[in-house]
């Protein structure tokens, strides 16, 4: 088990797979959650090693504002990146109190950059 991990909270299994495959060549673990409730639980369990949270906007069970509020109790909001296919991603991020976002569909390089950031190789600010 690595000391660094990324938490991906997304109901799209394909996207979770993609993050896992991108991260497998680094020293970063990927913790997966299909719902926000699962994500909060996983974050509590891995709080010490989670470096980055990738959060989808539309998910079953909990609205994005409530989900973000719960996550921000556990980690700093700058560690959470809203990853959404919805229109106006910056607006959506601001709406739920986040400053970082990644618009779907994104180039693989953007995802790799985030993984490197989590691994501590580089920490580019968005």
């Amino acid at each position, binding site marked *: 088990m690595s000391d660094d991990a990324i938490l991906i909270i*997304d*109901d*799209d*299994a*394909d*996207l979770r*797979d*993609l993050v896992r*495959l*991108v991260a497998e060549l680094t020293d970063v673990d990927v913790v997966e959650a*299909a719902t926000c409730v699962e994500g909060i639980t996983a974050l509590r369990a891995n709080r010490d090693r989670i470096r980055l949270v990738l959060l*989808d906007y*539309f*998910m*079953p069970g909990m609205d994005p504002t409530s989900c973000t509020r719960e996550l921000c109790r556990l980690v700093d909001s700058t560690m959470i990146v809203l990853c959404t*296919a*919805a*229109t106006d991603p910056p607006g959506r991020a601001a709406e739920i109190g986040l400053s970082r976002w990644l618009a*779907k*569909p*994104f*180039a*693989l390089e953007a*995802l790799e950059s985030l993984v490197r950031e989590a691994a501590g190789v580089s920490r580019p600010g968005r």
Partner: protein
Amino acid sequence: MHLHRTRPVSVGKRLAALVGVQAVTAALLLGVAFAGYTRLVSDLGFMRRYVLAPIEGISEAMENAAQLKLAAEEAPTSQPDPALMQHWKRDVGLFLERYRTEWAVAENSSEDALRFHADLERSNQGELVADERAAMHDVENSLERIDVRLSASGSDGHTAASIESDARDLRTSLRKLLRVNVGFIAVENAAIERRSRQTSWWMSGVGLLGLAGSLALGLHVRRAIAPRIQRLVLQVQRFKELGVHERVLEEGRDEIAILANALDAGFAAIAARDREREHFLAIVAHELKTPMTSILGFTELALARPESAHVRARALDLVRSHAGRLGRLIDDLLLAASTRSGALPFRPQPVDPAALTQKVAAEVVMTMPKRHFDVDVSRGRHLLADEHLLTQAVWTLLTYAAAVAETRRAINVRLEPDGAHLRLEVVFDAPAVPAEEMERAFAPFASVQYEGGSGIRNAVGLFLCREIARVHGGSLLAMNLTHAQRMLVLDLPA
């Protein structure tokens, strides 16, 4: 939101009042003009009958008197013809008789004569009536004297001189009668002028009052209409330029309020449709971008790691599974747009509906692995249909049913002939809903959210499916079978 109170009187009533005032004004003007004209005709008739006609008679009488005088003057040199003199005297006598019975104002008690008497008094010419009586009396006396002298035997110089003197008196009396009638003309003329002026004043007064009334009511109508129309125009312009719908509530029940409220309802409907369309487009964008993210990510990853057969296989599988659904979704959008513009392409050809249904069901299951279809199709019947449209309709129908149906319960699909028709029945477990809610699925931008195999997904509504059924001469119905089961029926002519 702006609230504009309106006056209780309707615009139609205000306009009716305006038209009423104008009609009354026109009627009064006509009445005054007609009365003035009638009075003028009456005055002129009176003048012609009682003043001008006598003047002609007086002239003839004066001529006869002159002949009588001339004959008397010439008596010393030439013997006058007694019969001729009698004739002249008789003619004057006949004139006097006629004047007295027909023309004399003093003896006339007709309505016109009484009015003329009043005119005489009003113009301080009342003595003309007495003068007329006196003149008639003088003419009568002169005639009597001439008659006596002509009756006397012989026509000596003394008699002729007397007749000449009486004839001169006769002419003087007739001239006096003429002056009286000329006076009558002057009085009647003045009366006509006075009455004409009165008529003009009346007409001017009525016209001015009517004009003032029309202007006042016109302004009243304008004040009731113009600002409200301007507000409506402004609202239309703002809606046209900005797409902003600001409600303008007209509390009144008049025609403008009805128009404003109808316009408002129309704008509200357009705005609601715009919101639905924007929401739908956002959903569609999300539905397109989500699988695109995986496709793009995995293909880039496969290109970056050519040595990994696992990544390559995963990428290809993912592309294959998403491509079909994305193609259908794009087709749905394009066909729905064609339908809304009234240009849905329809190219009929023989189609095997059983094979088509099974193929589409398999395709839907591939993208929605948590759903299970029990397909029971009756083979052997062919349809004359547009295969592309029908495939899209069945895909939409099954996708919608799968989205709405409870998971882990089979969706029953049955295709069977029904007389000259084919019925495709899709029965699934889902709570019964009111008819209005069920009908919402047929709205142009309807969508339904569901839990798909790879997260939350949205299926398009049944608008396109119903339109495709319609162009095939068929129908699409949705109904509750029980409190926990619903059915969709696609009915097509075989």
